[in-house]
Every structure is written in structure tokens, then in C-alpha cells.
């Protein structure tokens, strides 16, 4: 290693040999978009590096590690520059490094949300701060990402591992757990009988099994179950929802679509009941005099009565049969 990098002076702007610098292992931005990189390379060829890199010297091996400016460094290497300007600072503490890396960290792919969540967990643990806004401010992550990370952290480690598998084919998408989370919360809050029989982890295991068996493929379908549970507040019979959900959770081979269609059937019944109730109220309120003078309205009412009579007859016959 050249002399300069053996003992760099903190606080100074120095010109450091490009080959003595290494990227920050804590920075997961290993891939960089080609286009902006080309624009930066062109600019560096024309005017050089105007904004010095920010680096520190790692105590364990004296290597110069980039804190900020990895793209500039990549371009300098590509162009063949010998040295780059860099401001040297003291080696940051692990926590400082994590926070700093968050500020230049861009999640490349959905699955990287779990490692991000784990880093966020360190920050929460070490700083004692846990509000979404504080964490978003500290890390420069959008509040929505902080919220998603916190949902992932709410799952036990054994499930977090499933999002951290090496082979994408074996890896469970973070969206699976984020969408499942609201179903678990709704079950816990609204469906006591389901919750008693199927605690959170058991429901999670069952959904994972169904997912691995291909019984449903689109995790957005969790929203349909959530909608069905939420519909309880709008008169959907709780007993019926619980019965259907318990049935679904008890049978491995029941597909998500079958569950969804059950949900839709229940929703349709609820919606019909609401329509009948509204119509009954309306009819009760109608002043007879206003209809008497209006033949069209009277005929509509008669038609309605005929349909209702017919349907009631059919239902009675079916019940009798």
C-alpha cells in the first residue's frame, strides 16, 4: 500500500490513490444505474472531481473506506485517474456508519426491505427512538418504507429468515408478510373464535403452506380477506365469516380463490340485505297520496310487488321441498 494511505490525516482534504480506496461494505448499493453513471463520467472527464469523496481509514487494516462518493470513485477508476480528492474523517462508530449509509442507501429490490428493516431495528434499539417520523428523518427513508420495515420486524425471526433466503425461488416476498399483517391484526381484533383456534403464527404457517402449494399466487388477495373481515362492521354476519375462515384455515387444499368467492358470496348477501332494508324504509315513508296521482309510479310499485311475491313463492317452495 502506498505511503499516503498508511497514515492519512483526519480533517484534511487529500488526494488519495484510487487503488487504495475500497467501497463501504455497509453500503448495499452494489449496482449503479448505467445512464447517470455515464453522465457523471463525462462530467469528470471534462472538469474533474469537484466534490471530494468522504472517506475514513479503517483501523483494522488501514484501508480507506468510502462513506460518500462511490459513484465518483467508480468513474475515476474507469477513466484511469491516479488520485481523487477526498475529505478524511474519523472512523465512524458502527451506529453512525449505519445511519450514514441509510442516507445514501437506495433499496434496489423488494427483498432488500428485510435487511433494511434489520438495520432500522439496530437504530431503534440503540437510539431508543421508534416513531415513524423520527426514524424517517434520521435515515432519510420515506415514512411508508419505515412503516413497512416495522411491520416486517413485528414478525418472529423464523419468518424474517424466509425473506432472507439466498435463492429468490426459495425466498418469500416481503409483500406477503406486509399484506398478511393486516389480516392477522383484523382477525385478532374482530374474530375471537378464529383467533382462539388459530393464533397468529398458526395462521401465518397455514398461509405459507398454501402459498408454497400454489393455492394462491397473488398476495394482494389478502386484501380481499381483510375487506371481508372489515365488512363485519357493515352487518356482515360475524358467525358466517368466522365459519368460512376457520374452514379455509383447516383445509390445506382449499384455494384462495375459493375463499375469495366465499367472501364475495357473503358480501353479496349483506349488500342485498342492506338494499331490502333501505327499500322497506323508503316504502314505509311514502305518502299514499303522492302515488295515487302518479300512474307510472303506481305501476312500478305493482311490478315490484309481483316480483317480490314471485320470489317469496319460489323461496317457500324451495324451503318446503
Amino acid at each position: 500500500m502506498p505511503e499516503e494511505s498508511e497514515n492519512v490525516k483526519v480533517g484534511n482534504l487529500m488526494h488519495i490513490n484510487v487503488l487504495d480506496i475500497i467501497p463501504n461494505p455497509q453500503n448495499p448499493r452494489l449496482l449503479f444505474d448505467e445512464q447517470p453513471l455515464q453522465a457523471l463520467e463525462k462530467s469528470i472527464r471534462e472538469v474533474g472531481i469537484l466534490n471530494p469523496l468522504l472517506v475514513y481509514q479503517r483501523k483494522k487494516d488501514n484501508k480507506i473506506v468510502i462513506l460518500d462518493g462511490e459513484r465518483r470513485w467508480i468513474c475515476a477508476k474507469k477513466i484511469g485517474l491516479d488520485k481523487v480528492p477526498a475529505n478524511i474523517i474519523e472512523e465512524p462508530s458502527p451506529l453512525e456508519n449505519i445511519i450514514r449509509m441509510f442516507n445514501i442507501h437506495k433499496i434496489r429490490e423488494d427483498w432488500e426491505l428485510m435487511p433494511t428493516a434489520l438495520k432500522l431495528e439496530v437504530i431503534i434499539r440503540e437510539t431508543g427512538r421508534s416513531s415513524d417520523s423520527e426514524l424517517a428523518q434520521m435515515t432519510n427513508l420515506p415514512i411508508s418504507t419505515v412503516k413497512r420495515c416495522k411491520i416486517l420486524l413485528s414478525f418472529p425471526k423464523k419468518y424474517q429468515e424466509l425473506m432472507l433466503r439466498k435463492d429468490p425461488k426459495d425466498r418469500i416476498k416481503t409483500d406477503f408478510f406486509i399484506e398478511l399483517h393486516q389480516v392477522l391484526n383484523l382477525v385478532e381484533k374482530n374474530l375471537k373464535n378464529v383467533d382462539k383456534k388459530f393464533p397468529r403464527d398458526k395462521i401465518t404457517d397455514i398461509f405459507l403452506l398454501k402459498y408454497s402449494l400454489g393455492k394462491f399466487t397473488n398476495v394482494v388477495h389478502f386484501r380481499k380477506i381483510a375487506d371481508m373481515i372489515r365488512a363485519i362492521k357493515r352487518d356482515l354476519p360475524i358467525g358466517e365469516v368466522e365459519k368460512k375462515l376457520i374452514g379455509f384455515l383447516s383445509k390445506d387444499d382449499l384455494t384462495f380463490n375459493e375463499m375469495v368467492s366465499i367472501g364475495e358470496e357473503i358480501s353479496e348477501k349483506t349488500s342485498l340485505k342492506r338494499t331490502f332494508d333501505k327499500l322497506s324504509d323508503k316504502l314505509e315513508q311514502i305518502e299514499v297520496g303522492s302515488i295515487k296521482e302518479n300512474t307510472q309510479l303506481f305501476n312500478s310499485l305493482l311490478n315490484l310487488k309481483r316480483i317480490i311475491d314471485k320470489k317469496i313463492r319460489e323461496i317457500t317452495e324451495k324451503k318446503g321441498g
Partner: protein
Amino acid sequence: MPGGDFFRDHSNEINTLLTKFQSFPDISKTKIELWIENFSDQDRELALKVLDKVDYFSTARIFTACRDIFTQLKTLKNNDLSKVYFCNFGNPANSGQHLSSMFAAANGLTGSNSWRFKQVSELNDLSLERGITLVFLDDFVGTGNQVLDYWGGIASIVPQDADVYLGIVCAFEEGIQNIQENTEMKVLCHERLNDSNKLFSPSNPNFTQSEKDILINYCNSTGSRIPQGYGNCQAIVVLSYRTPNNTVSILSVQNENWNGIFPRHHNYS
């Protein structure tokens, strides 16, 4: 049974293969015969030869590999294991035969040493610790690209100044080089493979060119999207608890076109 004569005539070879693969889950004589039946009559001798040449890592062989990796590590660390941790490198824990568990058992690192073993999701417990050595454990590396991609995601949760190693049971040289050039990890590998270990490579001495051509056709007929294995690795490696996706499809695929023999064991558990 079709092929009855062939199986009668080659009963001894099949029994030898059964012994070789006995630690693979659900392996049986019938399973071997059904797999051979994927091949037409004139190619069944070749099918037997493929099984004979499979680089099979039995449980005992994996234990040996684990001991070797640990010995390499101890040498590098001058036997100072005070802050050494091990972590499964993102592989599913199948049937309790987790590589970490095997590594622990092979090296007597069970019981009071269990603190050394972490899951990836537990690495952030160590993120503020200084001076630790972290050894990721993986069973097979082909091109190394999947390792690089995975490292890109998890590097950020690896403790800042940790000395990081990747202990691998078996790996292609090109994959090891790829990892060492592009990550902070230093590789400790038990068995290194090169071009001559690739099934269809001209430098593979075990099969003639015409045999390789026949086998390529069978690989293509399995309906796999990666007939010659992920990254075109053409590997014929099988581990006692799983088959790497770099292994050729005739050995790993199980579908309506092909009676599999060493399935990859995909599940979430």
C-alpha cells in the same frame, strides 16, 4: 415391467448406486429404475454411467467438509475462536439437516457453543460488536453470481469491521474468484471444481463427445428453463439433503416430462 431385462442384467450396479445414494431422502431401487426409464433402451447404459459419475456428498462427506473448513479457519485465526460466529448463508433449513447444524455437530460446536450460530435475521444483534469473525456457511457455489446478488442485500447488516469468511462445501473455481474479487468475503472451500467437472465440457474426461451430445438432448427434453443448470454450470453435484440449482436438469428436475431422482426440495420450511 418394460426394461426388465436391463434392470435384471444391471442389478448389481443399481444396488451399488443405491448404497452410494442411501443418505438421500426417499431414494430407492424403484426410484433409480424409474429415472433410468426416462432414457431410451440404447441410452440406459449411459444413464447408469451418469449416476456413477454423480459427485455425491453423503452426510458423512459433508461432515468431513465441515471439519476441513473449520480446520482452515482455525489455522487462519491461530486457534483464537473467542469472537467467531457462524451463519447459514440464506439456505432453507430442510428436514432439520441445516448445514449449520451439521457444521456444529461435525466440529463439536453444540451445547455451550450454540451462541456462535446465528441466523441472517439475527446478525443485527452483532452489528455494534467490534473485532468479530463471521463465517457464512454455504454448501455449493457455481458462478458465484447468486452469492454476489445476495451479498448486495445483506452486506449492510454484516457488522462493520467483521472479518468475514464464506465456508463452502464445494465450489467452482470461477465462483470463488468472483466472490473474492467482488465482496469482502474470504473463501474457505473444501472441494474446488473446475472446467473438467462440467458435464458437457470438452475437458471432462468421463464422457465422450457423442455421449455428451446425447445427454444435452435429454437435458433439453426435461422442460427445465435451465437445462444445463443455473449459470450454465453443468454440475453433477448432489448433496444428501438437496440438489443445487447448478446441477443439470436430468438429475434435479421432477415434472410431467421427467421422472426426477434428486429433486431440489423446494419448500418454505
